[in-house]
């Protein structure tokens, strides 16, 4: 289809423009830029151990962007559902002519806001690869032809692919991005002008088609992210496999102050964001913000734009702030405006960063409870316990009735307020090879119950955990879950 269109475009060009020379000249330019950029293009390979224990091999295109073989790729390839500890064997594959070289690499971290992730080649044998230059401030004009570069798969020796597009529109909100008239290839790959100046990377954008589109309101499209979005990260890439932290205010369930609501409140044509919920112990809570407060301005800057964009534009302005920075919010409460100062903090630990404890024999993985667990389940701030993240199908834990999402508060009547306590208590109790292991768990928001796990020491105790499923099949095939109260 695309090839047809391309052929048609080429034909049209030939017919309209006439001289064969012009077409050749463009092709020549493309080949030239391709030749200059190709040496910096790489493929990142790794495997993911999914939460259910299955493994998936991954190949993601990337490019060298800095000294000491700093490699950048799309952050979309590193999913938050899977803890970073379950991503293994990062390697950078470099295609040099027909020869492929694989170098060991270390994952440095990512920034989902800028949609990029970073790695560094650690293999001592690796030569310094040429880094792409990302000059800032190069204007991108409507209609300008651009090239993006990806690679073919393993069977084709990761050969470089070039896509040729034109800028179709400039998107302003929530970030500046450029819509193009064709296929851009894979996210994270570089985009350059016909003169070979790299102007950005391929990213994805949720295009807002308006409420009338219903469930299709947001359409995910490929765009060109200009270099400005991630330039700062090229100078100071993340470290330690972490997500780049953005300043945190601690409000959620935000809604726009619609024109009608503004009129209702006598706020005339002001824009605003209505706070639906203030998270316990957050900077917002400490500063005294309340649900139903309406934020009208931040640091003197009014919230503007179409009302459908108020929330996103406020959130994006927040992301620009620094951790520890004090901001002043003009809010509307009880029919009066007032100013509240808030010192933004580092965001709380996310579930993916939480420490985990796995016991293969019991077929369960648990992790420490994080602030967002309490927020999502509306648990009081003082609630303690550890969260069951995964129970293996037909494993001992699942047969006992334990479910993912349960919060374990006690093991054999011993409190497990945090992961360290759980690991200690659980392993100590398991070492006794008990006939039963009784857990006290919170399920849902309020209901607690006892879960009794019956280990099958005699049939599966000595075998490798891998065989556990098999032994199960011919054993007590239908063991009912613990009856629910």
């Amino acid at each position, binding site marked *: 289809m695309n090839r047809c269109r391309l052929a048609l475009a080429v034909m049209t060009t030939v017919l309209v423009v006439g001289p064969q020379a012009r077409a050749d000249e463009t092709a020549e330019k493309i080949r030239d830029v391709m030749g200059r950029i190709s040496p910096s293009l790489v493929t990142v390979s790794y495997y993911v151990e999914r939460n259910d224990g299955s493994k998936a091999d991954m190949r993601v295109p990337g490019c060298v962007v800095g000294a000491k073989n700093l490699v950048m790729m799309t952050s979309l390839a590193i999913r938050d559902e899977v803890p970073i500890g379950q991503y293994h064997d990062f390697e950078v594959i470099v295609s040099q002519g027909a020869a492929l070289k694989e170098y060991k690499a270390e994952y440095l971290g990512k920034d989902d806001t800028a949609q990029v992730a970073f790695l560094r080649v650690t293999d001592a044998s690796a030569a310094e690869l040429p880094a792409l230059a990302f000059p800032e401030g190069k204007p991108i004009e409507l209609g300008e032809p651009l090239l993006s570069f990806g690679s073919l798969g393993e069977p084709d020796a990761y050969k470089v692919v070039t896509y040729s597009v034109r800028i179709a529109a400039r998107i302003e909100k929530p970030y500046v991005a450029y819509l193009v008239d064709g296929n851009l290839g894979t996210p994270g790959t570089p985009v350059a002008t016909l003169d070979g100046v790299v102007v950005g990377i391929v990213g994805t954008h949720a295009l807002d088609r308006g409420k009338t589109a219903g469930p299709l309101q947001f359409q995910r499209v490929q765009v060109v992210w200009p270099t400005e979005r991630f330039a700062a990260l090229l100078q100071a890439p993340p470290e330690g496999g972490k997500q780049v932290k953005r300043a945190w205010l601690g409000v959620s369930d935000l*809604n726009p102050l619609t024109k009608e609501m503004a009129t209702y409140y006598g706020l005339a044509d002001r824009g605003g964001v209505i706070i639906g919920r203030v998270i316990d112990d957050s900077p917002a809570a400490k500063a005294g913000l309340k649900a139903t407060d309406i934020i009208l301005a931040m640091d003197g800057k009014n919230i503007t734009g179409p009302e459908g964009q108020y929330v996103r534009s406020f959130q994006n302005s927040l992301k620009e702030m620094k951790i520890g920075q004090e901001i002043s919010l003009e809010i509307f409460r009880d029919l009066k405006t007032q100013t509240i100062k808030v010192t933004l903090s580092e965001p709380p630990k996310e579930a993916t960063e939480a420490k985990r404890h796995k016991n293969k024999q019991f077929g369960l993985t648990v992790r420490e409870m994080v602030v967002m667990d309490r927020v999502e389940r509306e648990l009081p701030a003082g609630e303690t316990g550890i969260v069951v993240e995964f129970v293996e199908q037909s494993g001992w834990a699942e047969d006992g009735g334990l479910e993912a999402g349960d919060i374990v508060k006690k093991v054999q009547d011993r409190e497990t307020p945090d992961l360290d306590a759980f690991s200690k208590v659980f392993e100590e109790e398991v070492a006794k090879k008990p006939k039963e292991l009784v857990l006290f768990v919170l399920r849902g928001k309020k209901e607690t119950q006892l879960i009794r796990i019956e280990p099958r020491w005699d049939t599966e105790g000595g075998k490798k955990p891998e065989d556990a499923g098999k032994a199960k099949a011919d054993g007590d095939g239908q063991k009912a879950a613990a009856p629910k109260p």
Partner: protein
Amino acid sequence: MRTLLLVIVVLGVSTVAVGCGAAFKANQSPLIWAEMEDSIKRARDMVYPATVRVEARKTEFFAGQRKRTGGFGSGVVFDPQGHILTNYHVAGQAQELSCMLFSKERVKAKLVGGDPWTDLAVIQLDLEEVKQKGVTFDWAAFGDSSDLSEGDMVLAIGSPFGLSRSISRGIISCRERVLGEAMQLGGGLETGLFSTWIQTDAAINPGNSGGPLVNMRGEVIGINTRGGGNDLGFAVPIDVAKDVVQQILANGKVTRSTVGLVFQPLQDLESFFEVSKTEGVVIASVEPDSPAEAAGIKPQDLLLEYNGRKVMGRYPEDLFQLRRMISDTSVGTEVTLRVRRAGKILDVPLKTAELTTVKSDEVNYETWGFVGQDITKRLATREDLKDTVGVYVTGVRGGEPAEKAQMAHGDVVIRCGNQDVTDAEQLKKLYDESVAKKEQMVLLMVRRGAAVLPKLVKVTYAAEAAPAQEPKKDSEPKPPATEEKG
């Protein structure tokens, strides 16, 4: 298929009876069949004339839209005053009732009282009309469901599929069936927490609901309530029904106590608790803001005695009895719970509270386009609501202001304009005022989960709108095109 099978069986019996007359003494089976037929007919004749077909009409809200619906079921007259026992889901919410008697005469009836927890209701024939029409009716006797055993032959009588009266025959398949505990009747009403079920293979189909399950002595031993396929029918034991009937006849309703405990069977946990097999029940969970919580009962306590009576909850079946023991206590009674906690025996005094249902009267905020109700204690517990303050939205009408403001079922209205909302009646006053003033914009604050969201309800009043002083008349619903008829 079932009909066909029955026909074959009956044909088989008659063939044997007629054709094998000579071999009668040598083979006992014709005699047994004949005896069985006789006893079926005897039992039938004792209950059949007391069985009625119940027709019910009610007005209720679906998605905020008022609809008239009709339904039918079965019932059994149990006294000379024309009291009829039937299911709550047949008659419990009806505004209009009529019964078709054995004589095929139709007589009006009225609701005496209902109990969703056991899915039972008592209605009464209009004795005036009975007298006027000169019709007669019979009544059946209640038996005893405590001495049933699996294999006992039973008859299910009723009006399946709204057809005229019929009988099906079967045996008791299980005398104490435990079904899932999270069962619901229409409108989210909970049911089935206080009794086990009699399971039978006698055919029970829609329309049989409320009809009697009868033993071979012609006594009612259960009320057919659930069924419909695979030879699985379920009846409420008559012993449970007797208590309910007694309370409804005395007070027009059934009042129950709660202490706010959720139990878990002790089965297999004895060694963990270091107790004998017949001692106590596990307290799995303590409901927030309940008497038990206030008295300091903790999850993982073992309940040993309830007000001096020993408690035994080893199997799931036992929990129903146990819940009934607590719910049967008069509301507000001081009771003592003996619990074991970490090896120590504690006596905890507390006062029982009234067990409510999730439902309360729905109020229609017609012009704003939604229907709401007070938040009962039970609703707050079931839906994890913060407290019982506010109005719980039960339905939002399509295309109306509330829906346009993206209000939804389950929202709790907590503020209207600058006034806090306490309950449905108070919001109705604010609503009436707003409609009288023809306010074009009303800002409601609703709580959804842990968030509070503003909802701007925009109302357009036609220039020649009906006088707002009579909102009731104004809001009388037009019958929707999709009205269901029974």
